[in-house]
């Protein structure tokens, strides 16, 4: 059983892996995981509503995409977390990131990191999702700019990019 006791300064020391790096951090009990991630410098994860309803704070925790604004920072102890920065960078973007760019699905971009983390969750599980499935999986990521139309196209494009990469690996 893991037990964490509050130290004299009033913090809980937690350890976790974030974007493949080891972290050991002091957190306060009221801090959310979103607060912690942004405080550590990972600004790609956004705060849109602080109630888990808009999806802009979505991150991948132990392979599942979740909303980080409703989780206490304490919850991250012992977990493996990936944020948008962990997927790819401008010099070497992840195929999902490229797909969103090519499909014209990025307008203001605020909802996009969360939308991409959810897309990764979907495409890790279903190789060639149909439109209905895509819309079902994306329904927790709110967007006011695009109407979701080009974003659904982006997910389809991402799915075919990933399939090509997978096929290439076998050759």
């Amino acid at each position, binding site marked *: *059983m*893991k*037990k*964490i*006791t*509050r130290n004299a300064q009033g913090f*809980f020391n937690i350890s976790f892996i974030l974007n493949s790096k080891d972290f050991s951090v002091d957190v306060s*009990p*009221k801090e*959310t995981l979103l607060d912690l991630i942004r405080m550590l410098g990972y600004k790609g994860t956004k705060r849109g509503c602080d*109630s*888990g*309803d808009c*999806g802009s704070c*979505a991150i991948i925790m132990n392979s*599942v*995409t*979740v*909303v980080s604004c*409703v*989780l*206490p920072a*304490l*919850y991250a*102890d*012992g977990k493996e977390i990936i944020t948008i920065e962990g997927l790819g960078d401008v010099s070497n973007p992840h195929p999902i990131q490229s797909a969103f760019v090519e499909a014209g699905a990025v307008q203001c971009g605020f909802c996009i990191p969360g939308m991409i983390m*959810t897309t990764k*969750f979907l495409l890790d599980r279903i190789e060639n999702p149909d439109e209905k499935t895509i819309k*079902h*999986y*994306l*329904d*927790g*990521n709110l967007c006011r700019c695009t109407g979701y139309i080009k974003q659904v196209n982006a997910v389809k494009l991402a799915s075919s990019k990933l399939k090509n990469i997978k096929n290439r690996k076998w050759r």
Partner: protein
Amino acid sequence: MNNLKEVLRPKTLSEFSKIYKKNSYLMAGSTYSFKSIENNNEIKELIIIDSLPLKYIKKDKNSVRLGSLSTFYDLENNEITKKHFFGFISHAASFCSSQLIRNMATFGGNIAHPNAFNILPLIVETLNGKIKIYDGKKYYTISLGAYYSKKIPGLITEIILPLKYDKNVFYFEKIARTNSSWESYITFSFRTGLLKNKITDLRMVFGALTHIPLYNAQIEKEVIGKSVKELDIDYVAKRYSDFVYSVNPSHKYSDYRKEVVYNTVKEFLNKLSKR
């Protein structure tokens, strides 16, 4: 949570039993928990139960057993829940709020924190399911109604859903303004046993009316045993619509609910009679 002193994460039920006290605060998926206790300064100890071996969906001879840490995503996509009860559990689970919440919200939490829009209680009630609770010393197996009325403290470990209803007819619909919605006007969760046009069993549960699901045993008793072709469907539909209306006549949507219940029950029974 200013006075929180310890965070514990038991890995086995035996570790859990050593630390659990009657007023311990348990956190599983945290879709509800954290935001609701953020400003609670009484809590000194938090038990995060997400490492307990309760994330399973399995089947034995008589029942489907859902471990309480299963998420709505698990319930929606698992082979057992998709196959049994004609996919009723999987279908119902897909109506929970939104994907990211479905990924995190555990069904145990959905039962432990009653809310008008919770979906798991509807599933349990419709299937006459039993809830298993562990208070650190003993296991209790009780019905949902008993759980809500007796308010037994403890960890919900699993739900047992009887397979005897496996071949029943199911109907689940959430009426809301949009397709993806946390709230709803009213939610229907129906189960009928049908044998050569005779209604052998009936459970018609209504959600979103009060914080716990409602059904009317009296009306069900009157209908069970009858042939669906001889049933006065209009009468039954009207009985149900009056029943739902009477739950909260001054509610903003009471008239709407009355009308929708009448239309829906009528259509449901009509469809049954055409099978």
